């Protein structure tokens, strides 16, 4: 199995390389360059100077060569929109909000989803069940930006409990975190709740649970030790892709809450034709997705002994 994962790890290299090639070709096919005339009062000579400085006047493969040479040395290139700064420094500044948002949202979605799912299954057809199924349904039917609008209007503008924009600056500054996490996490939470509930119900109908009951074990022990533990196996394997999706798919929430994260920078980079930034973000996200995928496969093998990789 170690061999299998080593091969998978090695396989990441050609995949990521292909990602660079495809992204490079695509972004150069986008109309317009990073330095265009517009409301800025810069002259055409200045634009020509900038294009020359960043090799943008060279053929695309030469540009790709320059890029890959830098990349292999760990240099992700200059940040064309914020001149003078580099993509490395930009990513260094913006990865934290995105990572924090992704991790916190994953935790929120998992905990809420699992808890609601378990409660709904244990107390099947009770008010609790209906409530959590209702939450799961409503939560799943609202795009996160609609939820974001509602949360901001209610908790920031009306009750002034949480800030409307921005992100945490440190330990004590937890308030800006709450609304984005709720907006981003409720849909996956609803999803996890549904899966958990279904999985619980399935396990509860298994023979070995009946056996456990027949043995006279306490209900609490049965639920916690036998049902929950087995029912969470499929849920566990879902967390990888959900985390990857939340880490790489948070840009609308970042955009809406003005969170200085990578997602927002990526959209701005595409609109600003900031080539090195587009490349770097795509590569970073691709790596996150591949690793998450690998972790899922690993988890399958760990939690389900029937699966063997070779």
């Amino acid at each position: 199995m170690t061999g299998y994962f080593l091969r998978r790890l090695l396989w990441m290299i050609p995949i990521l390389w292909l990602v660079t090639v495809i992204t490079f070709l695509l972004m150069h096919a986008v109309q317009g360059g990073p330095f265009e005339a517009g409301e800025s009062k810069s002259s055409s000579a200045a634009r020509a100077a900038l294009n020359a400085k960043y090799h943008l006047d060279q053929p695309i493969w030469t540009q790709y060569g320059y890029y890959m040479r830098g990349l292999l040395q760990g240099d992700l290139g200059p940040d064309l929109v914020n001149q003078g700064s580099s993509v490395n420094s930009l990513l260094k500044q913006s990865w934290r909000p995105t990572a924090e948002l992704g991790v916190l949202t994953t935790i929120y979605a998992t905990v809420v989803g699992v808890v609601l799912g378990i409660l709904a299954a244990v107390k099947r057809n009770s008010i609790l069940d209906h409530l959590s199924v209702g939450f799961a349904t409503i939560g799943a039917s609202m795009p996160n930006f609609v939820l974001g609008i509602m949360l901001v209007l209610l908790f920031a503008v009306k009750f002034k409990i949480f800030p409307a924009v921005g992100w945490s600056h440190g330990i004590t500054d937890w308030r800006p975190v709450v609304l984005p996490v709720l907006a981003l996490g409720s849909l996956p939470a609803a999803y996890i709740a549904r899966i958990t509930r279904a999985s619980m119900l399935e396990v509860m109908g298994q023979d070995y649970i009946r056996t456990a009951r027949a043995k006279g074990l306490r209900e609490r022990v049965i639920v916690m030790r036998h049902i929950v533990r087995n029912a969470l196996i499929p849920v566990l394997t879902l967390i990888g892709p959900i985390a990857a999706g939340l880490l790489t798919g948070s840009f609308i929430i970042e955009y809406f809450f003005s969170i200085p994260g990578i997602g927002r920078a990526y959209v701005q980079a595409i609109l600003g034709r900031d080539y090195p930034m587009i490349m770097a973000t795509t590569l970073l996200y691709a790596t996150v997705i591949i690793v998450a995928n690998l972790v899922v496969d690993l988890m399958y093998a760990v939690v389900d002994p029937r699966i063997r990789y070779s």
Partner: protein
Amino acid sequence: MNVRNRWILLLAAPLAVGLTLAAACGGTSSTDKTATAAAGGAGTTPTSTQTGGLPADAAPASQQVLSMNIQAEPNTADPQGVSYTYELSVNHQLFMTLFDQDPKTSQLIPWAAAAVPTTANGGIAADGVTYTIKLKPGLKWSDGTPLTAKDFVYGIIRGYNLKVSGAAYGGFITSIKGAEAALKLDPKSATYLTDVNNDLKDSVVAVDDTTLKLVAAAPSAAFLSNFTLAITAAVQEANVTALGANFGVAASASQMVTSGPYKIKEWVPKDHITIVPNDNYGGGSKPFLQQVTFKFIADMNQAYNAYQAGQIDEAAVPPALWPQISKDTSLTSQTYQEEEFGTRWISVDVTIPPWNNKDFVIAMNQATDRATIAKDVYFGLRKAWTAPCAAAVVDCDPTLFSNLEYNLTAAKASMAKAYPNGNIPPVTLEVVNDPTTKALATTLQSQWKQVGVTTNIITTDQKTLRADMKNHKSGTQITGWGMDYADPSDLWAIFTTASLGGNNLGFYSRPTYDALEAKQDATLDPAARKPILIELQKFLAADPPVIQFAVQLRVDLYKPYVKGLISSPFDYINYGDQFLKDVYIAKH
């Protein structure tokens, strides 16, 4: 067991875990955590203002903290690199130029200079092109070293170095002798810097430490106004050399040596810039505010939400909310209203059909119901306006453009003249995706339909929009002009052949107009200049380069404790943003 109680506990758990984690993440961060916690200005020394004398109703120095929204992140803090209004707002606090504009009267006033040179005070020589400027005595940089005329020579010439500055405004200061030659040099040449210096060394001269000599290429009424532009600010050569390519960049912004009332404390990319007083400022009285934070919130609604949530002290009013806010007595006391010193128009590409047909452009002007746009699209936050010049521009006469006012009968007549057979080609309106701009586009679409014109609306981003206009693909761009200074040359130069590829977005090129514009700029006597300016406006009314539609009425909200704001037409981004020196926080 009580399930209900446990359920509530379980619901609370994720929140608690999340918060603990947020705390843990924050704890490992290396970035400055004082941003919000120490918003009381812990890093500054309050002594200077206590002796400087705060107004009687002012809060203690530690509370002299203002947070405002400049809507976009500056690309740089390098004065030779800035050109957007949101950059200028910050830069004006950091770097002194020779002159400034009086926020109330728009008159040229001295800043680093001791006085505005005139023929009477001997500052302008008899030849009309040689200017002698004395600096205020004892000027210092924020690091305490003396600021001399040499620093201004360095800064002004640096503005022509395309490799460093991108020469924002480069085309504007061709009025210096040798500038035109310097701008034509090839930045890739090995001797580029020496060549730039050689072209300008006789026209930008430090006579002694406090005396500067400037030589104009030709007599020009707008010459001195150019030295209010950020690109002509002094920068410290030692500092520029030390920081190299990082001069003006966020990461090393706090190391920039400044000359203005403030210096940068921190610049957190994508979030905010914080400035604190420069204790060595010698260009005027020291500011009251001990800390000013400029946030970069692009969306007006988000900014308004942040204002309501108490995150910022200033925000613009989103147009759709204006009817509501203007009726809400608790909010009207927080609003500041002013007319922007600039105009909003639709640039039309007069080189491609149907815009190359003069009568068509006139017809479209006459078909544009500006009053409805001002009322329906902008909720009264814009004023219908037909002349391309704002009322405050010297010798602007709006009545000269009355032929272009909304008049369907006239519009149909002009259209019949333009296209007698009725085969009117469709036009394209490319706009950015913004609720208000799209409402404007759809309104124009339905108005132009009345004269038989089909309008295709395309929403896109700024970059594509500019590129398409430049490549003659779209034919229109909703834009306008915010005045840099009161002199009319700043506006009328836009429509000259010389501005093609720059601000002349519609490729308007008329030799007669070029001659008129050059003549007015070279005429120093206001009385002699006026008839030329009138003639110039008549020319534009008969052959319009744009569809002018509004002047903006800017309404900003300020928290009630923000006092000392100055109304100025120049600060077209925020009310008072360029003139913070009298602003203070009242006790609250």
